[in-house]
């Protein structure tokens, strides 16, 4: 099982690299360096767990659609191998261009899995495509079905491990990645700072900009 350990190492490192790319999640929470490191490890484990769920759904698809029966180990190895491009996941942190780099890396990873399924089981490219796409769909359906308990568990885990409080659920982390939480948090910080500056609770400005923004 050298292959297995090697690919697991790759997946864990890719998870850490991805977490560095997403470090805004931790740094926006103003965590301490030790908690930051712990957050990276936790994030890496979470990432590997996600890969495992995807691998199992891919294995299920291969078995259900094409009647190929075998141990899931081989599928897991292929999916872990597919995380190789994500060793550069830290580039996701790059300002403005980072998300594009992230998409490119994830696309490369998916291509690796596609080719792995194509070569590993002698499927045509289209068959391999259907397997990987349906497996992804299954994972998405699972996350919808079990989204809420998963959210609670992940939020609790993150809070416990890192001491962070802002946006620690799965959904919250997604909002931190898109910047929604940063914007709303900073704006409420600004309002609070303004109250401190003015020393009262005077109403905020009402201008044409507000009215037009509200009306969309």
């Amino acid at each position, binding site marked *: 099982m050298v292959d297995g350990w090697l690919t697991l190492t790759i997946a864990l490192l890719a998870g850490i690299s991805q977490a560095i790319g997403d470090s805004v999640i931790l*740094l926006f929470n*103003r965590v301490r360096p030790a908690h930051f490191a712990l957050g990276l490890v936790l994030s890496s484990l979470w990432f590997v767990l996600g890969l495992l769920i995807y691998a199992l759904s891919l294995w299920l698809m291969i078995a259900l659609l094409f009647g190929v029966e075998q141990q899931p180990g081989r599928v897991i190895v292929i999916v872990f191998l597919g995380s190789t491009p994500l060793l550069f996941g830290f580039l996701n942190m790059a300002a*403005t261009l980072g998300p594009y780099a992230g998409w490119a890396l994830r696309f490369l990873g998916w291509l690796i899995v596609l080719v792995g399924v194509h070569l590993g089981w002698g499927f045509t490219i289209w068959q391999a495509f259907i397997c990987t796409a349906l497996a992804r769909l299954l994972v998405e359906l699972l996350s919808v079905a079990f989204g809420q308990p998963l959210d609670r568990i992940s939020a609790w885990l993150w809070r416990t491990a890192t001491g962070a409080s802002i946006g620690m659920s799965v959904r919250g982390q997604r909002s931190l990645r898109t910047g929604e939480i*940063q914007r709303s948090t900073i704006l409420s910080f600004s309002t609070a*700072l*303004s109250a*401190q500056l003015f020393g009262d609770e005077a109403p905020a400005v009402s201008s044409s*900009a507000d009215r037009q923004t509200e009306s969309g």
Partner: protein
Amino acid sequence: MPFGIVLLLAPLILVTVAGVLFLMACMAAALEPLLWWAGWSRRSAVNLLPFDSPTAALLEPDVDSYIVYLSGAGIMDPNQMEEKERQFIELLRARLPRSMLITDVFPYSATNNPQLGERRLARLWRYAWHARKARRRSFFQWLSVHAQQLRNSLQVAVSSDRRYGPILSYGVSQVVVAGLLRHGYRLGSDKPVILTALSGSGQISVGCVPILKRLLRRPIWIASIGGILTDDPGILETEHVYHLSGSLDNTQHMPRFFFPGVWPIFRQSAINRARRQGRITVFDVGPMKHMRQGDYMSRSATLPDGQRYVDKTIAVLTEVVARIEADAQVAMNRSEAATPDGWVSEPRVGLGLRSLREKAEGV
């Protein structure tokens, strides 16, 4: 390996390595405001405002507006501007004696730490500073000058990134407010605040507007001189953007390559909505370039009517400031009658600017 394959692969490898290095530079750029916010940097105080400042008790200076000048990506320290920019500021000050011009804000740092300030790469930036003055530059001097501009340009990228932009903007906004207070601005003043943004600071100023509005409880105007305007949602909170555009300035159109939101097909993007709301007015100021000879501050290049480029830029800016002051006054007078504390400004302040534009073009 056959020579042909090596020849084919070499450029690909070089481009990939260059791309990865560039992305790493973009990463480093994002780290600066992030580490400041997280409290990991030496300048860890997130609140930058002088709450105990005596300026609040002082009488407000007798001016009609406050203009915060935010320089382009070439700036290293607002207190050590290049001669050309310094003269531009002096001319602007002379043409706008009733405006308080604030020029000591470095918009490419959340903590107002200029490139020539206390930094890890201070030696490199000082080298670049001297290299800029050299008549003939060596390769390393040329490289350092471009690295200096790249560093500031990447802060523009940070500002436009939804993940980091609010953090950088929060710092810069506090610096702007601190600058206003230092220059006698009284909180709650009815004098309009205008961000005059050159080049990359166009995006930075747009990013700051929502925060500044909340801090000052007043509308904010932007006068952009060839400014970089992306699809930042802050533009929808800007009272009005007056954009001075040179026909030979291609750099101002750079966002088209990196921000699909500026493409007209994305009708719901912030900048396209702002355009439809009449919130942006573009002035074609003539065949001006973005920088160097023939730019907005050029004293040697002239328009067909003999007017120097710098004079044209200042003339249009003067008109813009006059218009903003008039709009602000009208809005203030009306709101005093309606609500004692609200500052309900005129809807669509930018409307009716066709005459202004024609007037400006005729200057």
